[in-house]
């Protein structure tokens, strides 16, 4: 009964825009760094990796000429955590309150597991997308597993069904509790109750794509780098187009051992790990 009344009461009464204006805090990099340190102290173990084929064209989009992805060079990566900071600042990832922190529930899209950065693998045959009831988790033709925050109702089925558990749920109302900062105007603020995860810096890709289209040149994703790839001091994170034979990502993949999580191997991940020689 309560739910019925509550449901009717809440029905169509969302005024998200008005609330957004207040209580946004100034970016404090020190605070974010402190949270990242705390998260990195309490790492989960890295799951089992196994050799996978080089990501290729998606079956659902046979005419598409791009599939964006990423590779993390495990021979170079030393788990410094710079990528997490860059990602948090780029994507306006909120801080969490003390209670969530005590449960190790951070919102960081990139998390360290066994000193290896782990985030959404943008699977071509993503299990999260199949079970989303409202089509909030969708695949773009360019190979990104995207989230439409305005569609998300928060059933959390996607999170439960993700084998690597990299999806993050907004348990706290960061705006209300003053945990939200806005360091990048191009990325929307997520409200309480929706899922989020690595977007592969969709906004950067989109902006570059529009510019390429405006200039009338074919769009292959040249010149775009995700925030984490930009920030990595060792250059261990390589962003690129799997279908572009000229890209560094593709050429590297031909000579390196390409690994992904065993639990994901069946789902055609677009974010992989490089280790050793082929």
């Amino acid at each position, binding site marked *: 009964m309560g739910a019925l009344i509550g449901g009717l009461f809440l029905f169509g009464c969302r005024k998200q825009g008005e609330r957004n204006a207040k209580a946004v805090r100034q970016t404090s990099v020190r605070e974010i760094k402190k949270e990242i340190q705390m998260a990195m102290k309490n790492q989960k173990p890295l799951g089992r990796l196994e050799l996978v084929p080089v990501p290729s064209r998606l079956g659902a989009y046979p005419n598409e000429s791009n599939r964006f992805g990423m590779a993390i060079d495990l021979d170079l990566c030393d788990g410094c955590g710079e990528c997490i900071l860059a990602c948090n600042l780029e994507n306006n990832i909120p801080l969490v309150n003390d209670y969530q922190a005590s449960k190790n529930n951070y919102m960081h899209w990139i998390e360290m597991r066994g000193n290896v950065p782990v985030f959404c693998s943008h699977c071509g*045959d993503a*299990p999260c997308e*199949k079970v989303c009831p409202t089509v909030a988790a969708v695949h773009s033709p360019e190979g990104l597993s995207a989230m439409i925050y305005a569609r998300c109702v928060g059933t959390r089925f996607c999170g439960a069904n993700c084998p690597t558990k990299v999806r993050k749920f907004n348990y706290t109302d960061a705006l209300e509790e003053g945990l939200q900062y806005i360091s990048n105007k191009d990325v929307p603020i997520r409200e309480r109750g929706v899922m989020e995860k690595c977007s592969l810096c969709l906004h950067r890709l989109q902006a570059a794509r529009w510019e390429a289209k405006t200039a009338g040149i074919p769009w292959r994703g040249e010149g775009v780098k995700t925030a984490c790839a930009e920030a990595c001091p060792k250059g261990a994170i390589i962003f690129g187009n799997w279908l572009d034979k000229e890209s560094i990502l593709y050429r590297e993949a031909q000579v390196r051992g390409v690994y992904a999580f065993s639990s994901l191997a*069946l789902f055609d991940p677009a974010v992989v790990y490089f280790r050793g020689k082929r």
Partner: protein
Amino acid sequence: MTPLMNSLACLLALLPAPFLWTTRRPLARQGVLLSLILVSFMLFVFLAGDSNDATMEFYPLEMWAFCLCVSTLTLSKRKVFFMSLAQGLWLWILFFGSLSLFYRGLEISFLSMTLLAVGILSFRFLKTNSRETSFAILIYWVGIWMLF
């Protein structure tokens, strides 16, 4: 599962079928009997089945439904009704079992399901009391089991 084990499973499922409803037992004992038969099928599949084959997850249930199907041939009252129910159970197990495996990338084989559906819809028009039709129906089910 190899064809040999498949036919062995068929035999095992046929074995208790004629004796299920011959004597009138209290409900609880009948339940215990059916459950024990199911457990024995489960143990058989656990030992003889291929653990990498995902269809093994509902294989013992399929055996059980098959066994129930065959056992309805011995009924005297409301035979067609229970025959449809038992086939419905088999179809249910097959369809929803393979639907859940479909999300893991396994193909669904529709042929046996179609044949079962045909059975449910058409057996009411047969004279199920005669020995010959009973035998033909038995052959039909064994055929579904063995071939698909």
